[in-house]
């Protein structure tokens, strides 16, 4: 909402200066977005003098002008004007200027091979006249000593631009703003002058509001103004319209706009002679169409509120008028409309047709239903003043009567809500200045809400009115209440933070990527999940919710590889979506590692990252998060985006259905499809939701501390075993021989090839044996050794290597 201080003072007697007004506006909830000159676009145009005009080397009709633009600067401009000649004073637009006529932004450009720094302007280009045959010729006596100065004087005053919240339609007019300021002590609201307008004759175009279920109009007021002379608006009116950032059109249109911005009372003027017999306000039928004043043709749906005549639709009520009945300079007789349209209807129609106008913006927020006559009178007065004509009696048709909103307000609610007290007297004064009718009934105030405040419906709204006008600075700053109702974080929230930092501490950079991704990449990772498209995505390559974190992670991994990074470790912790309903999401860590370990090392051998690097990272992170390493079981079944032979799943214990984590190489097909070029690429993922909450605090879960001081002994075994036999199995077989005596089993060597039969491998394990009751003698140990060998051989088909 834009307006000038001058305009505000039409409604407000105030001693406040501009800055005080600005501050006050912001303090009462009318946020000032800017306070600046409205004509800043024109500031770039300056007076200049052509020093030398010579013919363009590559074009006879163009000239190459050396132009003096003041401050001892001369620039070269290519100009096509026949009147460009040495010594001419004219108007120069530097690069960056916006030409008013076509709204084009100038840039430095080459014209037929010669660079032109800006432009010399014609009157038509600056919208000063229709003169377009040559550049502006400024009079020597007036402009000779003004070279380099701005051509357009700052005539208009500064414009205040307010950001009005959607609950305050009343402040979409200058008078409403003035009223708020007066309530806040910034002046006195001027009383509207009584109109002494003389009416002649009746409004004799019949108006009917059809009683229909979907009727979006409840009041239609109008008057006829006969014998007008439409013309350009006078300067004061043009200036007002310009200060709003709008284009003056003609006196009649400008007046209706002016009244809209002045009183927040949208109006519409029809050329009465173009109305076919009568005005019918009704709901549209699907397929009806009309050409609107924005020069677009709209095809209507059912139940849109239209103003029509016998020939069809004239316009969309409260949104936009039509060209068929529009006013022109030749218009002689006007039908002036001032109506009330229901916000819901306006909003629905404008959404369906995608139209946004100043009138629509106001009606959908709620216009004062009692401002019908005031608007007609104010506009008629101005039209009579500027365009002449005779005004008919006002004709107001309604199908519904306005009902007052009454609130019984207990002033105690104010203190209860805000924490401070305002005397009843002051409170009443504020409300009265805002337009409330206040009467007292013991402690309760009976308030009649002003008709221009559709947002006020209950007591809490009154509290807001008083505290906002009184000023938020009066609210005390209480010490924070430190009472705690429950622990800050629950188990999974703690797990989240723990794992996040645990993974990062292994050299991974945490990233945060969009929750949406490219369906083409997502499809490679979605497994059996349903694709979740976004109906209105921000772009076509962010068109689905991610089913996995990897699509984005790999996309950005590739970008970083393209930036020249070779060894990259990245991870993200966040949602992966499994369905489109609320809650169909898992919290997942996805991590990628690419490149080498020990690249360019003077003492270590370079090595490409592999599955066991990420296996370490994932297992260690899980252990740090509190999972017992001895419980962990590894499986080789993994999602299809993993390398089928070089990946594994991690389970919290044997019978678990869902893997807590997966790790391994990415499937080579995916690397190829995504065109990722790196020496090595391994990934892991942890699904936090699948980690079981032991529900035990650490203080309760620590078992008794027991250890054995008896001598332990270590034995090494090497077995020849089937190539596909899992080392984890072997370890389990050995442990199960005697889980009291066998303290640990460590695989320390695995190899295939030389001396090992085809299809077999050799596994060497180190077994630690220790009793808690005695020192084992040679005999005991020998028995265990034999048992280990026989168990392994019988259960796995392995052979001990001799």
């Amino acid at each position, binding site marked *: 909402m834009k307006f000038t201080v001058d305009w505000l003072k039409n409604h407000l007697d105030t001693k406040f200066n501009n800055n005080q007004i600005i501050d006050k506006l912001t303090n009462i909830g009318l*946020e000032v977005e800017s306070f600046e000159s409205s004509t800043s676009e024109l500031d770039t145009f300056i007076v200049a003098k052509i020093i030398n005009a010579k013919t363009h080397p590559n074009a006879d009709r163009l000239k190459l002008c050396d132009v003096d633009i003041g401050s001892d600067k001369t620039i070269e401009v290519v100009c096509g004007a026949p009147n460009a000649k040495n010594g001419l004073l004219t108007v120069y637009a530097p690069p960056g200027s916006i030409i008013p006529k076509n709204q084009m932004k100038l840039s430095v450009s080459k014209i037929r091979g010669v660079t032109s720094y800006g432009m010399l302007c014609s009157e038509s280009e600056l919208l000063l006249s229709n003169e377009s045959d040559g550049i502006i010729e400024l009079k020597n006596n007036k402009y000779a000593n003004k070279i380099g100065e701005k051509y357009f004087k700052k005539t208009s005053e500064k414009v205040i631009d307010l950001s009005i919240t959607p609950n305050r339609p009343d402040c979409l007019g200058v008078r409403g703003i003035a009223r708020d300021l007066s309530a806040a002590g910034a002046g006195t609201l001027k009383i509207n002058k009584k109109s002494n307008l003389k009416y002649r004759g009746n409004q004799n175009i019949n108006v009917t509001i059809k009683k229909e279920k979907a009727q979006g109009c409840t009041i239609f007021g109008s008057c006829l103004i006969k014998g007008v002379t439409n013309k350009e608006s006078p300067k004061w009116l043009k200036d007002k319209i310009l200060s709003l950032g709008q284009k003056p059109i003609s006196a009649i249109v400008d007046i209706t706009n002016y009244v809209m911005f002045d009183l927040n009372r949208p109006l519409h003027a029809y050329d009465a002679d173009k109305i076919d017999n009568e005005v019918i306000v009704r709901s549209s039928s699907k397929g009806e169409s009309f050409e609107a004043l924005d020069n677009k043709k709209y095809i209507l749906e059912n139940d849109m509120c239209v103003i029509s005549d016998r020939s069809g639709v004239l316009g969309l009520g409260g949104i936009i008028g039509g060209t068929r009945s529009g006013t022109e300079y030749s218009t002689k007789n006007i039908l002036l409309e001032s109506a009330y349209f229901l916000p819901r209807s306006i909003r629905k129609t404008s959404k369906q047709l995608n139209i946004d106008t100043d009138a629509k913006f106001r009606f959908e927020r709620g216009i004062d239903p009692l401002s019908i006559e005031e608007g007609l009178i104010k506009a008629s007065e101005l039209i009579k003043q500027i365009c002449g004509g005779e005004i008919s009696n006002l004709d107001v048709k309604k199908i519904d009567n306005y009902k007052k909103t009454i609130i019984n307000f207990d002033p105690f609610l104010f203190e209860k809500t805000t924490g401070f007290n305002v005397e009843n007297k002051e409170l009443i004064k504020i409300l009265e200045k805002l337009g409330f009718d206040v009467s007292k009934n013991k402690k309760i105030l009976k308030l009649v809400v002003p008709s221009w405040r559709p947002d006020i419906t209950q007591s809490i709204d009154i509290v807001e009115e008083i505290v906002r006008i009184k000023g938020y600075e009066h609210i005390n700053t209480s010490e924070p209440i430190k009472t705690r109702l429950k622990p800050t974080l629950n188990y999974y929230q703690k797990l989240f933070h723990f794992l996040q930092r645990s993974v990062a501490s292994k050299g991974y950079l945490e990233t945060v990527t969009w929750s949406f991704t490219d369906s083409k990449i997502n499809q490679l990772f979605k497994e059996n999940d349903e694709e979740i498209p976004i109906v209105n995505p921000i772009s076509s390559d*962010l068109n689905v919710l991610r089913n996995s974190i990897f699509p984005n992670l790999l996309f950005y991994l590739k970008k970083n590889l393209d930036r020249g990074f070779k060894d990259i470790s990245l991870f993200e912790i966040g949602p992966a979506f499994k369905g489109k309903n609320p809650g169909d999401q898992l919290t997942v860590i996805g991590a990628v590692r690419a490149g080498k370990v020990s690249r360019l090392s003077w003492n270590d051998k370079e090595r490409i990252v592999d599955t066991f690097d990420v296996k370490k990272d994932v297992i260690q992170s899980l252990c740090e998060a509190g999972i017992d390493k001895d419980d962990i079981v590894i499986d080789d079944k993994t999602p299809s985006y993993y390398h089928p032979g070089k990946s594994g799943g991690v389970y919290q214990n044997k019978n678990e259905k869902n893997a807590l984590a997966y790790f391994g190489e990415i499937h080579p097909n995916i690397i190829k499809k995504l065109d990722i070029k790196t020496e090595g690429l391994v990934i892991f993922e942890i699904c936090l939701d699948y980690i079981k909450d032991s529900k035990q605090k650490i203080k309760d879960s620590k078992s008794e501390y027991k250890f054995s001081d008896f001598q332990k002994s270590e034995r090494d075994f090497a077995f020849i075993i089937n190539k596909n036999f899992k080392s984890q199995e072997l370890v389990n077989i050995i442990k199960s021989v005697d889980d009291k005596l066998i303290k640990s089993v460590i695989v320390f060597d695995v190899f295939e090839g030389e001396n090992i039969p085809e299809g077999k491998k050799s596994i060497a394990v180190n077994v630690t044996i220790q009793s808690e009751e005695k020192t084992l003698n040679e005999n005991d140990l020998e028995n265990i050794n034999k048992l280990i060998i026989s168990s392994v051989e019988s259960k796995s088909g392995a052979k001990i290597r001799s």
Partner: protein
Amino acid sequence: MSDIKKIKDDYIDKLNTENNVDKVNNIKSELFGKNGIISNEFKKLGSISVEERKKLASDLNNVKDELQNKILIKIQEIETKEINLKLEKEKIDVTLPERDIKIGKIHPVSQVIDEISSIFSEIGFSVEEGPDVENEYNNFTALNTPDNHPARDMHDTFYLDNNKELLLRTHTSPVQVRTMLKGKPPFKIIAPGRTYRSDSDQTHAPMFHQVEGLHIDKNINMGHLKGCLNYFIKEFFEVDKIKMRFRPSHFPFTEPSAEVDIGYEIKNGKIVIGEGDKWLEILGCGMVHPNVLKNVKVNPSKYQGYAFGIGIDRLGMLKYGINDLRAFFETDYRWLSHFGFDPLDVPSNYRGLSR
């Protein structure tokens, strides 16, 4: 006696020039072995007169001590020399690079969330969460933003179905609704998380982060709201003084509503919070609207309280001097390394919010 002295002097001389431990040990056995020179001298004592024996024994003992001592010192000397020599040979260039260090980092958004949680934890708030996909009711209707209300235009919503029933939450406020529906007052929570609006330019990203705050009890008023936020902002920016301004605004789910500005100035191209006369809007808040309380089955005549919503990314940008919001989500390795935080840097009260 002169014999002994001579032996002693000879061997002292010998030891003085000797540089080999083995040879010193040979000398030792030469002197003190079974048939060693000194050992033999002691054996001779038996065959001489008592008087002579006394004297000779004393002399012999002295010589023995002296020589043994000398041998000991000599061995030590040689060993020290040998070790020193060995150490000299073993010397390496310790300025050569260590084995690979991989330094991981925590994203600024995560760090800021932890900072915020730590601060609010101090004054008794607990953390709640809600899903990223919400239904229309929780995101709008329950929050007193009916369909066909212009306030909905303030949110450019991503939808998951054509009926506009399912959407990506446009703010964290639906967590208020969920929290209150599933529990009984009082409520004292914050809810950080991802939020989405179909808006994208330098200062807007289609996904960003908010933290919701909610405190509902019997007598919570705007003074408590002001106090809570004043405390939070001071703690968060780690400054002693903060200039804060409450300004009336409008949100459908709070009444009265406020926006909060903090004072700042630009010094040497950097934003300094808490000084200067410029204002920066950092959050929206207000007293929870009675309609919202009714919608979540809380009796507004018994309970009241405040709610607020803060842009997390923006707070991070202000505190850590990050200019471009979009960069938060672009996974540039250089950016993540530069603005990321050490994983051990866990914000907490006793260790300080940040280093």
